[in-house]
């Protein structure tokens, strides 16, 4: 077979960068250090120009509410992605835990919050076990868990549940000064995860196994355990996001949050986090979340058709992933293969 194939074409081991592309890649290399921050400011500027409503207190407040929910979800997704996986189950887990909290809050009060977080954690544990001990690729494992979580959400109740209990609703309505409580919860989550990644040994392992799981294993990193922790944390955070969303919508509903896994991945990717794992900044990922939501918000304010928004989102994700990947490939030609 191989003799046949050598005649097909000359082996192309990699093209040598030509003059202009090298200049471009050096330029992009310098830019990429602050490209996310630049994009953030650019989007704020576009919003400011495109709509007088963009920077009103009302709009910023509602943006922060949305950002808190997607942001908490994106923190979990970030943890899984830097450790070399994906979590496609987060949207379904939001629906499941929203249902759990909505159903249990009238009897249990605030206990329903840890209950929902624990339910999310269980789903994460399932993903983690499937990926590590089942050796199933993350994509398919979390797809299976997506099906399970969605099915369980409908089993908890196949109709939406209206929340009348004020304890949960207060989470959404309360604010500290001008800042809504949910945004503060989001900031606390960011601070805790940031400290965890920077200050603990387990935290550094996340990057190690995402960068190269084999070397990490040989260096004595408990790869399976770290992977499971990543998925459990992602599940717990999806559980928290589920409660926040139930508080915001005043109800739990089993069919909601379809496609949120894609939103959370998009947010993290726009924030410059490598989809191959091992690198990316948490704070930039959070900026990515804000950029993603602001773009949607601006399109809404500018009355862009919802279908066109879908198209633009797809193009945006593609551009956000393809362009840095191409630049990186140009820069690393000769250093790596495949």
């Amino acid at each position: 077979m191989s003799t046949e194939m050598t005649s097909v074409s000359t082996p192309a081991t990699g093209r040598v960068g030509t003059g202009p592309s090298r200049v471009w890649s050096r330029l992009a290399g310098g830019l990429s250090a602050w490209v996310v921050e630049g994009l953030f400011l650019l989007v704020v500027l576009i919003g400011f120009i495109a709509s007088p409503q963009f920077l009103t207190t009302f709009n910023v407040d509602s943006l922060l509410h949305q950002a808190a929910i997607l942001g908490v979800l994106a923190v979990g997704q970030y943890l899984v992605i830097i450790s070399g996986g994906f979590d496609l189950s987060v949207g379904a887990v939001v629906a499941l835990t929203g249902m759990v909290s909505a159903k249990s809050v009238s009897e249990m009060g605030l206990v329903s919050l840890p209950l929902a977080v624990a339910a999310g954690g269980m789903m994460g544990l399932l993903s983690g076990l499937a990926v590590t001990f089942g050796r199933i690729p993350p994509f398919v494992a979390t797809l299976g868990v997506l099906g399970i979580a969605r099915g369980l959400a409908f089993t908890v109740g196949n109709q939406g549940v209206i929340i009348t209990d004020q304890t949960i609703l207060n989470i959404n309505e309360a604010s500290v000064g001008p800042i809504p409580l949910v945004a503060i919860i989001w900031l606390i989550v960011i601070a805790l995860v940031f400290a965890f990644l920077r200050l603990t040994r387990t935290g550094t392992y996340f990057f190690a196994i995402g960068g190269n799981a084999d070397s990490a294993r040989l260096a004595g990193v408990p790869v399976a355990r770290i992977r499971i922790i990543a998925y459990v944390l992602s599940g717990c955070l999806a559980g928290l996001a589920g409660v926040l969303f139930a508080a915001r919508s005043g109800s739990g509903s089993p069919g909601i949050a379809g496609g949120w896994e894609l939103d959370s991945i998009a947010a993290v990717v726009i924030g410059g986090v490598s989809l191959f794992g091992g690198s990316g900044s948490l704070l930039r990922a959070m900026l990515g979340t804000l950029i993603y939501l602001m773009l949607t918000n601006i399109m809404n304010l500018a009355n862009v058709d919802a279908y066109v928004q879908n198209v633009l989102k797809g193009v945006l994700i593609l551009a956000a992933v393809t362009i840095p990947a191409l630049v990186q490939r140009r820069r690393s030609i000769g250093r790596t293969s495949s």
Partner: protein
Amino acid sequence: MNVSDSTRTEVKKSEQQIAAEEPRTGRQLPGGTMLWVLLALCVLAMALTKGVFIRPSNLTTVLFQSSVIGVLAIAQAFAVLCRGLDLSVGATAIFSALVVGGASSATDSFVPHLPLPLAILAGLVLGLVIGAVNGFLTGRTPVPAFIITLSTYLVIVGVTFLVTNASPVNNPDPLIRKFGDARIGGLIPAPVLAWLVFIGIGYLLLNKTKYGAMLYAVGGNETAARLSGVRVPRVKLLTYGTAGVFAAVAGILFLARTGTVLPSDGGSFMLDSIAAVAVGGISLNGGKGRIRDVVLGVLILAVASNLMNLMGVSQYLQAAVQGAIILVAVGANLRLAKGRAE
């Protein structure tokens, strides 16, 4: 001492390698494990439903309902064998179905009226173009296929709703409906026959062409394939192009079966096609698996779903069971493959 130790381990290693390469017929069941899983499932279904399952009318229903996913799963299998994934197959199928239905419709629709053969051709070309975009981007950028096809999926869904204004296509050419309802020999539905034809086409492409060999080579080890002279980007272009055409065919079969297509239809197509491929035992790491496995995967999921329907299991619980089947089947397949290799 050191030297002899290292040579000994080398000899051992090569013995192991030889053992791994030899087929261990004793440990494998004839026809593969999944065939026996399917048969066991059928026996279970027969017992649990007291024979209702085995009635010809029920069996043809199972096959009839599998035909669309059956063709879609072949599209997915091409991408998976090439160590990729195609998340856009479901959206492509529905878009093509809408175009074919709209163009062949006697009433006004979002596309100009075309005679039926041209309408079908338009649907297939649409699938090919979408697949080519996926293939081009997958071949030319190092971005994972699932992110690329995820983006094209979002774009296709957006464009579909945009051009159709979210309204359904109701009146395709009567011939299409006639095809969907036709029973060959009074028993076998025509869409099932179409499924068989495309199983055959998929088999020929994968096993009897140079392209098929290259596809397996790229899926198995892309670097090795490139170094031995395979034009990897072109193979990927062909692979996703084929997947796009097969997806369009699945869409046309869906149109023939239902007669009405909504832009919001086919929401479960993407996951169902991946589930079928995974359950059938095609390696999600690429390069390993046969068309036969895809068919078995589709049938196993269809029989399980039919059994749950007959037993009155709620639709919602079925989603959870399907998720569990995926996990168990993929985990078991990987274990078996590993056991065989060792």
